[in-house]
């Protein structure tokens, strides 16, 4: 993935990884090598102008655990030196190894990082898709976190998109209302007392009142980060939350989920119609909701999710 034209984003990284695994599967390759190019003189595309030569390394470090969510990962390489990256690309050209994106797409700087076309067609052909797996290196702490904070309750991963609270707000029309989620958490205290809501996402992207809810725990308040959150999610803790990066990770996993507030405009990229109950490759415990959240709607959706997992996760 070359960040001169690809975005630094969790959702796009998950989609990209799934497509990469599909290429590996189509060519019956057992091992995957990930190559990330972050060149200091052009660290980001025009879509993310806030990422500059002075901060791209930190953005990359923050996103790195997402690229480890791949079962057959043999190596991961990050290049900040163009000559070294060219050497590796030349190697790939000479050995003609299958890549995603293809070398021609790469040099044309054309990367389809949004659409599900390739994924849907693979599913139509084979009846399954390669799934994401928990990133290595975070399992022990994630387990300790569950034991220490969930207190025997069932952990439910929640992500409320609140880009408007971050330093670099983007596509705030996709954000959810914190008020309705707050009311839902309050309602859940009595409605689902065995549920423990693990609020994931950027540290700036939650309102302080949520930290005071008795049934909400925030991993980043306990010293954990993206890698731990993805581990909890991809280990199978059910997910409910806004259509965003974490929902994309759940989409390409077997984790039971409900994705709320799915953007209507995104339907054509997903290859489904607005109002579809689920993605073509989803399991029977994975749902989409296309409406703007209300606390009653979230409660209904959560009840559906809770019943599907039998309250156990």
């Amino acid at each position: 993935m070359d960040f001169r034209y690809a975005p630094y984003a969790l959702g796009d990284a998950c989609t990209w990884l799934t497509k990469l695994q599909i290429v590996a599967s189509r060519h019956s390759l057992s091992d995957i090598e990930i190559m990330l190019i972050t060149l200091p003189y052009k660290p980001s595309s025009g879509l993310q102008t806030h990422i500059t030569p002075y901060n791209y390394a930190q953005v990359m470090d923050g996103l790195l655990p997402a690229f480890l969510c791949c079962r057959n990962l043999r190596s991961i390489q990050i290049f900040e030196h163009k000559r070294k990256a060219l050497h590796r690309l030349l190697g790939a050209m000479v050995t003609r190894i299958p890549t995603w994106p293809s070398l021609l797409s790469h040099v044309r700087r054309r990367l389809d990082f949004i659409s599900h076309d390739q994924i849907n067609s693979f599913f139509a052909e084979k009846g399954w898709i390669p799934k994401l797996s928990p990133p290595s290196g975070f399992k022990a702490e994630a387990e300790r976190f569950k034991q220490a904070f969930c207190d025997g309750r069932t952990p439910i991963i929640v992500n409320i998109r609140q880009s408007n609270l971050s330093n670099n707000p983007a596509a705030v029309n996709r954000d959810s209302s914190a008020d309705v989620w707050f009311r839902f958490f309050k309602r859940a205290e009595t409605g689902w007392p065995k549920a423990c809501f693990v609020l994931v996402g950027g540290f700036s992207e939650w309102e302080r009142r949520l930290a005071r809810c008795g049934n909400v725990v925030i991993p980043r308040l306990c010293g954990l980060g993206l890698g731990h959150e993805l581990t909890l999610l991809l280990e199978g803790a059910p997910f409910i939350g806004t259509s965003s990066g974490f929902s994309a990770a759940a989409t390409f996993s077997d984790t039971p989920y409900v994705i709320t507030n799915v953007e209507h405009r995104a339907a054509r990229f997903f290859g489904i119609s607005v109002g579809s109950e689920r993605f073509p490759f989803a399991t029977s415990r994975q749902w989409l909701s296309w409406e703007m959240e209300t606390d009653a709607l979230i409660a209904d959706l959560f009840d559906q999710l809770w019943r599907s997992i039998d309250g156990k996760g």
Partner: protein
Amino acid sequence: MSERSITSRTGGKTIFVTYAKEVKDRKKLLLKMWHAKKDVKAFLFSYLHAATDFATIILGGIWNAYLLGGVATDSIAVGHVATGGSADLTRFAVRFASVLSAPARGSATHIDLALLVEGGASLGEYVTIARFFSRRINLRACMNVETYRKIIPTIASASAAKELWKLGDESRPVAAVPLAAASIGSFRAPALYGNLAREFLKVIDGRKKFCLICVEEQSSSDAIEALVQSRWSAHRDWQFVVMQGGGLLTKIPGSTTKDLIWPNCAGLDFGTRLALAAEADATIGPSCIFTLAAALSGRPVTLLDSGRDLLDVAPDIRNVRTVPALDAADLDGEIKSLIERSDAEELKLTETTQEAMMPC
């Protein structure tokens, strides 16, 4: 202007309607042509990019392969078996500092970092540590020895690769890693991490000094709280920052007052916590990655003896003092002495703690 409004305004004179239609159609056509032109331009440019990029890949790749023969001086190859945990991160940082502080390596702008990652190791933490040495990173993280062996020839010349080869074969290092005086000052927070750490301390109180107390990963937060709160009242000009070795706090502290600060609860990522260690005015604790960060940044550090087997501190390092494990009363005296050292050595720090602006 719509067709209907024209018609109503002109009393049904069709000539204007026709004119409006024509204008509309022409506008549509122009828009289509503009889009088509844009698409054609983008299409042609993408192939122009492709042609130049293919040529660049071939020439640049061959040039790099030629330089691997031993001429290249702009990068250093460093290898490590990443086993995870605070002790291994500490060993990694010390080795890194020692390799980079060698006089011959000063001109290198890039580091070719080869990691053999084992089960529980968190790759991101190793990369973040490497970024604190003011060089650009080319990372090759391999999940097994076979891949590691295949990758080495693409990283380093035959002579430089010798040490990297060994890593894949040998058992894990167990001896204490020597910390040399030349390494002090080599650890510098990249801009964003450093800024966040400084801002964090400024928000608490920009005028005060901060003492970082590092505690074992296993320590319970209650015990830490009791230990530190009994001491802060004796040093009113200072504030105390408690940092646990691992990231996870097993219990949110009952009190996070301005006098007793828990960065782990503040959503600071690993890099910012490292920068915080490098920014704190004094540090005390067992050998771990955070005390090491403070030591390598030139800050006054008191190493408690429990980590003696991890680091072998050279006697000529002046900012690090190693003491035996202490009981509560001695610890109070040691903190007092550390604070005095910090006040005395403040001016000297200007030589070593300047943050690095990354070369572009």
